């Protein structure tokens, strides 16, 4: 698609190639009062793509609570911003890079990290942590090892090189992702609350400055690709995949932060999906102004690039900014110091139009408002989801908990992820006080007593079985993970990964999940401050499981009050906080026995969630706990084993007739924690729990080299460790395709 405006007739085929429906085209013509030329059509197609316009999702996203006294900036900017006191602010966001990662796992994942880092530092924040949520297909699906290896290496290579620690994330395997893996990346940054930079162009006549890598023919139509369903031929179509350049990103980061210490920058936005088009249109729209660009001034990497290509290129590591008139030299000096390409490519106007010239001729002249603020919005038909799931089958009465536990800990979804996170530099910046492998990661706010707790969560099998409950659970689990280290959960970002919104049942999943998330956010005072929607995650009509990924940030006012999941010493009392009904529906235990997910997911009682969590956090604050871990996938016994392995300290657990049986040990009831304390305070804690309406009971005592159940069943830590640690390396060592 390389041509000059006017040279290509805008036929129905050309319109369709741009992913625009005939009605959408009519709308364009109506909005601008004439037929667009090809450049203009390209600009509309990316701005009105699902990725940029949220045309199918916006209606439902309005349900999210987005305000709280500590929210400085909610959705609508490059990233969300929250206040953590003392003039400090946290800036964070999550984004998907699913399709590129399936086609070229290393570069696709790497550039995903690059993109989300830019979203955060464009707001004036220094990135201090990365997380990533990965969903792969079945372990034996074609190419899956290759995808795992490439994605993990790509994420590591980018974050490690830029020097931002990758401190957490998720990784699970499920056949619904066989043809459509998910790579969601999250960045958390730190800024001064009064030094946040926004993408709102202002100041008529101010120069528009381009900085970063030169523009090539990368990923043209990438944003449209992210909104188009995969089919088996898409590998042959070979859309250009971008190659990441983390070194230039690091220079860009340092240069922007250096320039942001002055008052030269008026507005700034990264050139992400849809590159120069979306950055210029969105900056103009937010500022209520116009922008005039001279595309001949854009630094290009390749010969004979057309205006169409320059406007739509998705070359990485580029930023667009509006700077104060007369301050060009200062900006240029900083960018030259960091050896970056820089050029003044336009200026702010009062026309409300985006106008581009090339070699003196006008190649594009459009009103900003319909582009950025008036995309078509759809109220897509949707059907409420009520899956008729087979109930949990009658499970064999068994007293052999040990073998079941070993099998679970050695399964793809519960095995240790060390193979992944050891490839990420999780310690650079020297503030990571809780490394990967526990609940939330904890990163100090440099030079203060404060720390941030970070976690990324979602349980797609719950979301598939019952979208609304699954949506609630994703938020609740994230909140619980932050609570389990002692942090006060403050806000979330999200990445909503679904199949095609043009299918009512997928829309039903979407609506259900968003509704459940919104309920949980409201009940837990945990607003949504940023996020991303990724639709059309399906191949040949097979959609992924609904995956509304949640990324949460919590605050520890005093980092040294944090607790870890590891049993700290022998002779601590082990307490179970939260009610256990023994819910085996959708549990990993039942899946292991039944061979697939069965039954309905555990109910999420948001009031209990909040009561139990607040109680546990209070204990941690008061330094009354020695360890704490939330109970999630795999249930109570898996959580106990994880604590024992992390601390290399065993435990003796007593059961009673009421607690015996797999439902108690492997059920995935929500709102639960395991906590340890010195024995002297156990009784008082239980009494206080009782008084606060928080179910709690004493399970046993730490110590020894085994997990002992009832004095009968004895599972050695050695065996548990072998099961837990061996699956991932063994799986990856068979890398052959």
């Amino acid at each position, binding site marked *: 698609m390389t041509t000059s405006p006017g040279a290509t007739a805008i036929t129905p085929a050309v319109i369709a190639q741009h992913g625009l429906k005939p009605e959408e085209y009519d709308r364009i013509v109506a909005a601008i009062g004439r037929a667009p030329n090809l450049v203009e059509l390209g600009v509309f197609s990316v701005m009105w793509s699902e990725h940029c316009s949220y045309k199918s999702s916006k209606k439902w996203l309005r349900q999210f609570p987005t305000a709280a006294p500590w929210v400085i900036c909610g959705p609508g900017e490059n990233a969300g911003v929250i206040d953590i006191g003392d003039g400090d602010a946290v800036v964070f966001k999550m984004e998907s890079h699913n399709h590129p990662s399936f086609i*070229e796992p290393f570069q696709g994942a790497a550039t995903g990290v690059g993109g989300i880092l830019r979203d955060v530092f464009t707001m004036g924040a220094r990135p201090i942590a990365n997380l990533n949520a990965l969903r792969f297909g079945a372990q034996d699906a074609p190419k899956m090892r290759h995808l795992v290896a490439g994605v993990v290496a790509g994420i590591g290579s980018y974050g490690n090189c830029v020097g931002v620690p990758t401190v957490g994330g998720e990784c699970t395997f499920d056949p619904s992702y066989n043809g459509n893996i998910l790579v969601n990346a999250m960045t958390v940054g730190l800024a001064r609350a009064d030094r946040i930079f926004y993408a709102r162009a202002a100041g008529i006549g101010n120069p528009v400055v381009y900085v970063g890598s030169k523009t*090539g023919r990368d990923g043209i139509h990438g944003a449209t690709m992210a909104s188009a369903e995969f089919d088996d031929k898409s590998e042959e179509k*070979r859309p250009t995949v971008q190659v990441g350049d983390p070194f*230039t990103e690091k220079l860009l980061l340092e240069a922007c932060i250096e320039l942001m210490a002055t008052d030269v920058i008026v507005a700034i936005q990264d050139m992400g999906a849809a590159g120069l088009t979306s950055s210029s249109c969105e900056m103009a729209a937010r500022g209520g102004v116009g922008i005039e660009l001279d595309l001949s001034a854009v630094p290009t990497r*390749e010969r004979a690039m057309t205006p169409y290509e320059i406007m739509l290129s998705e070359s990485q590591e580029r930023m667009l900014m509006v700077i104060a008139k007369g301050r060009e030299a200062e900006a240029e000096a900083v960018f030259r110091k960091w050896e970056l390409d820089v050029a003044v490519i336009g200026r702010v106007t009062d026309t409300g139009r985006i106008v581009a010239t090339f070699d003196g001729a006008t190649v594009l002249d459009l009103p900003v408002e319909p582009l950025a603020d008036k995309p078509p919005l759809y109220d897509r038909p949707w059907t409420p989801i009520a899956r008729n799931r087979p109930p949990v089958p009658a499970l064999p009465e068994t007293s052999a908990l040990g073998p079941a536990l070993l099998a679970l800990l050695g399964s793809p979804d519960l095995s240790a992820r060390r193979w992944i996170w050891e490839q990420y530099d999780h310690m650079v910046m020297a503030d990571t006080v809780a490394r990967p492998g526990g609940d939330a990661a904890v990163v100090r706010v440099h030079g203060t007593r404060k720390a941030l707790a970070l976690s990324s969560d979602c349980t797609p099998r719950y979301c598939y079985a019952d979208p609304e409950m699954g949506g609630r659970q994703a938020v609740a689990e994230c909140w619980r993970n932050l609570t389990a280290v002692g942090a006060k959960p403050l806000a979330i970002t999200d990445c909503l990964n679904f199949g095609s919104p043009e299918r009512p049942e997928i829309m039903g999943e979407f609506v259900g999940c968003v509704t459940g998330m919104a309920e949980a956010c409201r009940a837990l005072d945990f607003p949504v401050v940023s996020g991303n929607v990724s639709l059309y995650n399906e191949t040949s009509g097979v959609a992924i499981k609904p995956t509304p990924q949640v990324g949460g940030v919590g605050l520890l006012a005093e980092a040294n009050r944090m607790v870890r999941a590891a049993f700290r010493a022998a002779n601590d009392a082990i307490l179970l906080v939260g009610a256990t009904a023994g819910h085996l529906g959708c549990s990993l235990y039942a899946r292991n026995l039944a061979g697939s997910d069965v039954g309905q997911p555990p109910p999420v009682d948001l009031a209990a969630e909040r009561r139990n969590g607040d109680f546990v956090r209070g204990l941690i604050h008061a330094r009354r706990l020695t360890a704490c871990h939330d109970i999630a996938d795999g249930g109570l016994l898996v959580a106990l084993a994880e604590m024992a392995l992390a601390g290399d300290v065993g435990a003796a657990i007593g059961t009673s007739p009421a607690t015996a049986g797999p439902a108690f040990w492997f059920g995935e009831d929500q709102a639960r924690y395991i906590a340890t304390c010195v024995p002297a305070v156990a009784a008082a804690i239980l009494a206080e729990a009782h008084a606060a309406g928080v179910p709690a009971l004493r399970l046993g005592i730490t110590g020894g080299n085994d997990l002992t159940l009832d004095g009968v069943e004895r599972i050695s830590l050695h065996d548990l460790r072998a099961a837990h640690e061996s699956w991932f390396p063994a799986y990856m060592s068979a890398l052959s395709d």
Partner: protein
Amino acid sequence: MKARIHVTFKAGVHDPQGKAIANALQGLGFSGIDAVRQGKYIEIDLAGSDRAAAERSVKDMCAKLLANPVIENYRVDIDAP
């Protein structure tokens, strides 16, 4: 037999390493450098003596493992045994 394989980025694919090398060479005082591209060079020693079969097999290796056709081209040369 020896197979010599060159794996290079397709035209138009951004090559940050090549660009960095060009900058570094300029910094060292070398002039007249228009562009630098970096690729991989792989040598494989193969048993057997059927050159055509070897070429087929090595091309298959390239397609399956050694190159990613989304962004890379490859060239295979087989030395006479």
